[in-house]
């Protein structure tokens, strides 16, 4: 090869080497600029995806009530507000009361993701625990989406202790602690002389007084031979409403469903029979309740009091907002008051008052495919401003701080004071995996006594046998 050619080749080779090094250096420089951006983009995309997931459409299943004034507020105020604030889509499916448990619990048990968030009462939790996403674990795993301070805020809810099953948090107690109060017509008490020395209405404190007052207020006002006003009313309907009524008679008379230590069934004890006899005699013997009480539950008792057909009743607190509204209850809105439920006078002179209570709230479906979005909705419902909105419409909510907010107190002050006092005597159903079956059994057999197809003893003996079978099957009794 000639020398000029060799030089040319050498030159070309050197140029190629320089260009290669330059290209390599440039590539490294570009990579140094771009890689963080790629990584940044990845992070951005991940966060964006998570944000999208937080606003995925979810389905919230609840019942209608009608003692669901809280659900009405959630449906008409809170859900639209949540969607407007967050851009998320919540399909609130309100299920008829008659099939509420079948549809919602059934969908959970079928491991269907049909409902992402479900409105349930606390007594369902042990039974459905396997199908519910533990919220404490979920919050720990997704701590980046949990609002700051939220876990501490949850401790503000007095009913939070009922939200745990097996040590796992399954439930956010959105709504207030529900219980019953004695509501009575102040004008009728005055008209028929049931007053104290100062001339103020004197509501009954014991079951004996309750019966006496009910008799006095069962009146034929126009003299046509037909009762125009009954003294009181009962929840007499199955499949379960009557159980929610009878149970506090049972407890205040000193009875128990079963021994909490040994689970020995005691519902058919002498106290239980006495309570059921008193309960059924209100209809069968004393006729101080409307004849149709076997078909009465919340709506019927609500309407009966609202339209002046009964003078007093033991009714759920959810009735209060509607009864005190002049538009919906023009006949009674300014003519009624409320107090603690009567109880059993004990030998020492004290009164044993006990009422049933329960807590409604939300659970996260374990089989939901939109858990992040569902959780955010549940968390949002628990925030103080939203709890306050609930309290302003309903009187109570899950959060204690929201309940004692000055605006809420100004609207419901005295009602809340009485409720707070009643809460001291309120119990929940014993939480077992067969609680719902026990409620159905009590309802079925107490209605038999109320309808006089069986005596109270016969009814409770059958009930006791059934409950014992359930407890044995569930392993509480050997």
């Amino acid at each position, binding site marked *: 090869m000639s020398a000029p050619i060799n030089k040319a080749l050498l030159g070309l080779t050197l140029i190629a080497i320089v260009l290669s090094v330059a290209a390599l250096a440039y590539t490294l420089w570009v990579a140094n600029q771009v890689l963080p951006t790629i990584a940044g983009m990845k992070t951005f995309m991940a966060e964006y995806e998570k944000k999208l997931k937080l606003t995925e459409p979810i389905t919230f299943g609840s019942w209608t009530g009608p003692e669901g004034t809280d659900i009405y507020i959630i449906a008409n105020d809170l859900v639209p507000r949540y969607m407007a604030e967050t851009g998320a889509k919540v399909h609130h499916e309100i299920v008829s009361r008659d099939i509420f448990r079948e549809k919602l619990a059934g969908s959970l048990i079928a491991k269907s993701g049909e409902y992402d968030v479900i409105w349930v009462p606390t007594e369902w939790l042990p*039974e459905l625990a396997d199908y519910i996403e533990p919220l404490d674990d979920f919050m720990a795993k997704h701590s980046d989406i949990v609002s700051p301070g939220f876990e501490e805020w949850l401790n503000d809810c007095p009913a939070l202790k009922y939200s745990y099953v097996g040590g796992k948090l399954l439930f956010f107690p959105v709504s207030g602690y529900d219980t019953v109060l004695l509501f009575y017509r102040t004008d009728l008490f005055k008209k028929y002389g049931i007053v104290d020395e100062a001339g103020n209405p004197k509501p009954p404190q014991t079951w004996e007084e309750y019966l006496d007052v009910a008799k006095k207020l069962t009146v034929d006002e126009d003299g046509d031979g037909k009762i125009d006003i009954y003294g009181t009313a009962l929840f007499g309907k199955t*499949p379960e409403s009557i159980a929610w009524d009878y149970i506090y008679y049972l407890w205040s008379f000193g009875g128990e469903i079963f021994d909490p230590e040994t689970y020995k069934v005691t519902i058919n004890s002498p106290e239980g029979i006495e309570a059921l006899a008193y309960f059924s005699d209100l209809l069968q013997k004393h006729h101080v309740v409307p004849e*149709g009480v*076997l078909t009465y539950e919340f709506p*019927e008792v609500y309407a009966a009091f609202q339209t002046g057909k009964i003078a007093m009743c033991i009714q759920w607190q959810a009735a209060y907002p509607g009864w005190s509204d002049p538009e919906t209850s023009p006949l009674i809105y300014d003519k009624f008051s409320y107090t603690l439920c009567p109880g059993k006078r004990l030998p020492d002179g004290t009164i044993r008052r006990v009422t049933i209570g329960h807590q409604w709230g939300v659970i996260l479906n374990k089989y939901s495919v939109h858990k992040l979005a569902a959780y955010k909705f549940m968390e949002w419902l628990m925030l103080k401003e939203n709890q306050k909105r609930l309290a302003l419409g309903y009187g109570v909510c899950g959060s204690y701080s929201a309940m004692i907010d000055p605006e809420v107190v100004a609207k419901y002050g005295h009602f809340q004071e009485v409720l707070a006092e009643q809460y001291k005597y309120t119990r929940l159903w014993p939480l077992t995996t067969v609680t719902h079956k026990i409620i*159905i059994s009590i309802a079925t057999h107490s209605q038999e006594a109320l309808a006089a197809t069986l005596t109270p003893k016969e009814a409770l003996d059958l009930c006791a046998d059934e409950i014992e079978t359930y407890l044995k099957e569930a392993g509480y009794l050997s």
Partner: protein
Amino acid sequence: MWFKKKLTPAYLLNVFYPYLLITPAIIFVLVALLYPLLESFRISFYSYSLQYPIRFIGLGNYRRALNDPLFWRSFVVTCYFTVAVVVAELLLGLGLALLLNRDLKGRSLMRSLILAPLVLTPVVAGLMFRFMYNPDYGILDYFLSLVGLRFLWVSSSSTALLSVILIDIWEITPYPTILFLAGLQSIPLEQYEAAEMDGASRWQRFRHVTIPWLIPFVVLYLIVRTSDAFQIFDMIFALTGGGPAGVTRSLSIYSWLQGWTNLEFGYASAVSYVLVAFSAVFAIVYVRILRARVEV
């Protein structure tokens, strides 16, 4: 060659084309009907409560049903209901059919009014009467009160089942009416003319011409309606839920309570299949007893 001829595309299409057309229906029947039937029958042999481990217990659920007092009470309620509605609807339906078969003025309007309740679904009928039966606000008691009467309808354990039966009679009587009307209109007029010429009275013509011709329709009605009435669920569910005090709790309602309230799907399935067995027995008895009369 015949072999090749058989397997030509045209031939195959000709042979299988009808089956292709009915395949969607068969798939639907298999998936929506047969599979649930078989699966529910299978789980009736299991302790299938969703709170506990599922385990095979053989005839345990069936034994439990036969020893369950609530099961037998529901069975008695179902039998009372079935006998009452089947007999009442048969007699009323026959009477209305005879009426509608006559050449009366306003017959078309009468037909429409009599047949109208049949278009309602049982749930709607139940819900409608739930309000109408209310002793405090219901329209029926309002009208009764105008004449000084009062009836508790479904609010009393002594009148609830009767109230349910009355709704069923009101709603379902149009069915035997249509059936017997069709039967009456299929009777050849010559039969009546021949009987009249032989001096038969109106009652004899009814007994010896009308009734024998209607027997196949009566058999059909009895088989269909008995099975249907025995499985009554939706109207009772909407109206009373089985109460008060279980006096309207049919076997279907009881099965539903066990399945969906107590979450005992195995036991609920077993109760359902006992119900199916009773229905089948009744159908066989009807066919055997009445087949001879039909053949004659």
